[in-house]
């Protein structure tokens, strides 16, 4: 169980200064996120980058590191948001309890979808995850007495929170950003732990060669199911953050267009890299922000840019940047 992970560790430490830097990826990422509100044109954009960054990071565990192209991640993003909203608005659960409950329930949903979808391989997996996520969408649409149906979930607002005895005004954008950033930091630490664990090496082995991983004695099906659940759990935390941020949950969050957006973000930023998802989320949202100023048809340009990325820059912005840096280091 340990040999692949120790091999990875050797490869990392041998690359010298950059290797050391990469090992501090959680701290570095948090540092960048901490100054983000002052780098971006608006606070609202920064909060969205934070939320979508966490969602896409969770998705990257599945797509980037395990090589499973799911088109159903919106189900967990949406589930996290809906469960948070329902717990707070309907059952009066305090917000700090609602978040773990929502993540737990979303992980159960991921287990159910994962049991069906991880039985399939290759392109089937993409189609089945898309279809099952659409099932969740239609269930939420029909169960309007609980979810609010087409109008989305309303009627829960977190305006004032109590942080270890200190009352914090949650409507203040700066306070909100840093409270949500604590969640993002937790998610990053968790993801980094997964990737550094022997299990992290197993999922990468599955991506590189499923047959060989199986031949080495790893339980491929079980590992896929576990990574599917972990990925769903992290993405659902992003959903909880969105619910706390918006105080409403739009139904469209569950639609497969949202899954597609998550796929686009991870590819723009760079799958398989730790910080790539945040770069991808930021690029996508900035692009949307900038283009929608002068045309309502921003999807046309985003689609075209995405197609160009698939054709010419499949490693994304951050992935390509890291590659060039590594090549530069290797040359004397």
């Amino acid at each position: 169980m340990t040999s692949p992970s120790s091999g990875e560790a050797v490869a990392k430490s041998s690359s010298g200064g950059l290797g050391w830097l990469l090992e501090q990826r959680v701290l570095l990422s948090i540092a960048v996120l901490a100054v983000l509100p002052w780098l971006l044109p608006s606070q609202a954009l920064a909060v969205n980058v934070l939320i979508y960054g966490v969602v896409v990071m969770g998705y990257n565990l599945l797509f980037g590191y395990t090589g499973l192209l799911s088109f159903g991640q919106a189900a967990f993003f949406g589930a996290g948001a809906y469960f948070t909203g329902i717990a707070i608005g309907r059952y009066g659960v305090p917000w700090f309890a609602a978040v773990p409950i929502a993540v737990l329930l979303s992980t159960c949903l991921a287990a159910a979808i994962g049991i069906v979808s991880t039985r399939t391989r290759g392109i089937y997996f993409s189609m089945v995850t898309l279809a099952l996520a659409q099932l969740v969408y239609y269930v939420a649409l029909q169960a309007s007495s609980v979810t609010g149906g087409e109008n989305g979930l309303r009627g829960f607002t977190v305006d004032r929170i109590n942080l270890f005895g200190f009352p914090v005004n949650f409507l203040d954008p700066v306070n909100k950003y840093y409270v949500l950033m604590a969640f993002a930091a937790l998610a990053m630490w968790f993801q980094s732990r997964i990737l550094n664990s022997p299990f992290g090496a197993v999922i990468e082995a599955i991506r590189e060669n499923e047959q060989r991983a199986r031949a080495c004695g790893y339980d491929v099906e079980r590992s896929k199911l576990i990574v599917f659940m972990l990925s769903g759990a992290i993405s659902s935390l992003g959903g909880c953050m969105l619910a706390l941020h918006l105080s409403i949950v739009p139904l469209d969050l569950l639609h497969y267009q949202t899954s597609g957006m998550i796929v686009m973000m991870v590819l723009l930023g760079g799958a398989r890299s730790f910080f790539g998802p945040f770069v991808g989320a930021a690029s996508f949202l900035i692009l949307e922000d900038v283009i929608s100023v002068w045309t309502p048809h921003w999807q046309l340009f985003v689609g075209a840019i995405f197609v160009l990325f698939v054709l010419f820059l499949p490693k994304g912005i951050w992935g390509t940047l890291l590659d060039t840096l590594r090549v530069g280091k290797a040359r004397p």
Partner: protein
Amino acid sequence: MDLSLIIMQLLSGIALGAVLVITALGLTIVFGMLGVVNFAHGALFMIGAYAGLYLASLTGSFWWGLLLAPVLIGAFGMLIEFVLIRRLYGRSIDDPLLLTFGLSYILVEAVRIVFGSDGIPFPTPPQLIGVLDLGVGFFPRYRLFVIALVAVVLVVLWLALEKTRIGLIVRAGARDPTIMQVLGVDIGRVWLAIFGLGVGLAALGGVLAGPMRSVNPEMGSLVLAEAFVVTVIGGLGSIVGAVVAGLMVGISISLVALFAPEMATIVMFALMAVVLLIRPEGLFGVRGRTA
């Protein structure tokens, strides 16, 4: 429950299923030959519906729209294969899927720019307005026409694949493209034609569905999910599977709508989950051809 009502609903289900069959067939033929799942299939279905509507109003006849739209959109599909998808052969199997997904964004937005975001009604051709007395009840003529036309298209496709020389090349190419190249067949041209055929079938599905539901830029997204469900149930790459699963899904949607309307949109996904748990490769899929 009235028996004649159930029979009528069954026929409605077959009409609905017929459109699904045609659409899913395009998806499954392209996958069987090229190993590409076209995520823009739903968007091309929608473009087909718009093209049919536009051509029908241009020529003043539904029939020209029905004939020309699949041909034109099919040619457009060949252009897509030639310019974009061809570059991705030999790369990861996920790449064509991602590319066509991005393409669907472009296509949907382009239609919004040209035709606007609102739905447009698609008039039923005057010859097919009204209902026909079938003895057990009255059934819309147009839906009967859809069932008949799809049956004809299926027979023609089957004959073309099984009885002609071109069909032989196509079937052999699906099994082993390398050997076909060694034998001197230009497999690139075959793939181009097959992709065009697949997209043409999506467009045909769009034109046929037009008068049954209104035409709007978002109609493709539901169709894509439906076509996926049908191909997954039937077995990706299997033509018989697409036909059986398409009718199965259409009929179950219709019958469930009769007893529990709120479950109608959900039943096909449940059906897919059950099939996957029992046979992960689909009803007519070949084990090991899932990658």
